[in-house]
């Protein structure tokens, strides 16, 4: 985002809204640090910051180069072209009843890198994707981050995006449930060397008796999930088959 210096009155109303702390006052005018700006669009929204002078404007050509990744991963009012989904561009458990992204006997893991508050560079994201790929993880096709990779088998992000940063991006994959202890140990080790944070999601289907099948494994590992969660009520249609083999 940029600020028209002729229009800016220097009122500073925009400064606390920036999640990346990219706006500062210099010579009584607000300035955007281009490197720090994540292109989330907060500052320019007339119903959010309400800049009295309408001084914010998008950088010309923003959507044409690698910097567009900042916009698509940080601004929920844009839509990822490949997945046709706004926000972080993935439906994860939201439509799992009809997509069957995670089925019985499987677990889904979503690693939201940069949340809360820290933001994430592609370099940090790639640290995680490379370590996961080296351990047999296959990344979710319907997730826009997967499409930034030049080599999914190694988790390598395309070189052109490597200098970009985002509010957050979600690394997502499904795997066999029996691999859960191994994968959580792997993720724990990856976390030790990171220069940012991530919020960790674990997706599973309810068992026939209504229980949550991963709970005993988590207890064994000494991991206690938060008391709140996101629950797919199974009201979508057509329902996806319960297993990869097509069984219900």
């Amino acid at each position: 985002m940029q600020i028209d210096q002729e229009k800016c009155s220097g009122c500073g109303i925009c400064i606390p809204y920036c999640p990346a702390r990219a706006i500062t006052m210099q010579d009584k005018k607000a300035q955007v640090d281009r490197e720090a700006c994540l292109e989330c669009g907060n500052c320019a929204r007339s119903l959010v910051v309400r800049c009295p002078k309408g001084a914010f404007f998008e950088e010309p050509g923003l959507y044409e180069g690698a910097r567009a990744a900042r916009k698509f991963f940080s601004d929920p009012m844009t839509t990822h072209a490949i997945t046709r989904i706004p926000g972080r561009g993935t439906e994860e458990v939201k439509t799992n009843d009809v997509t069957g992204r995670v089925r019985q006997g499987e677990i889904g893991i979503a690693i939201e890198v940069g949340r809360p508050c820290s933001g994430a560079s592609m370099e940090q994201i790639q640290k995680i994707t490379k370590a996961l790929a080296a351990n047999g993880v296959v990344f979710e096709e319907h997730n826009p981050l997967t499409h930034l990779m030049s080599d999914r088998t190694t988790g390598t992000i395309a070189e052109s995006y490597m200098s970009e940063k985002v509010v957050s991006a979600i690394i997502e994959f499904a795997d066999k449930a029996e691999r859960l202890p191994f994968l959580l140990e792997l993720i724990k080790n990856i976390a030790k060397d990171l220069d940012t944070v991530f919020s960790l999601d674990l997706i599973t289907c309810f068992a026939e008796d209504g229980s949550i099948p991963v709970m005993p494994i988590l207890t064994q590992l000494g991991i206690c999930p938060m008391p709140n969660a996101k629950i797919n009520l199974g009201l979508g249609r057509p329902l996806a088959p319960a297993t990869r083999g097509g069984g219900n």
Partner: protein
Amino acid sequence: MTHSLHRRGSLESLAEDYVLLATAAAGVNHHGSKDKLRKILELVYEAGPANIGSYDTGTVFAGVSIEEIKAALAEVPRVRCCFSSKEKMLQVLKGIKELDLGISITVSGLIDEVLDMACQLDIKPHSINLSLGVWGKTEELPPEEILEFVTMCGHGLISKDLVAKAIADVKAGKKTPRQAAELVAHPCVCGIYNPDRAEKILAKYAPQEKPVPQVG
């Protein structure tokens, strides 16, 4: 919007906070689903949500009307909102179940409470996204009183500085807890930030009213 499962706070506070997402699945059942989502929006609005918004317009707290939200539904439409009471959430879910629209519905909230609602409505939940918390360089996170607010936005657009300003304004008596809670609501364009819950949290920072001197 994965983040609605990572909301933080006391059990008492989280018990008054439910996020409802109605989502047409891209490439599966999104074609022709706009009218179905509009019916859900009507149910939600009638019940009295704590907040409601859209990726396309912003929220009611930013000055957008429910009619504008309905009119602007995208190619792959979705409804995003939150409720401050289990009773209202239950009422909406009951209506959605009766409509039988075939649209995927998720509710984020305390697991036991959401499962209880499903049980009351004879709904068999399909899957769950559990929060295993925050990992990595957590020592650089802001304090818990800030995180309680920023994690209420699904996309990280509520900045820690805006929350700090809201708290400072309430402490200084410049804003009421409600005014500050609504100020913080604006950046969360989807409308899953819960201003009722935020108001209650902010109330603890409000200056105590001085006792009125007794006359006579």
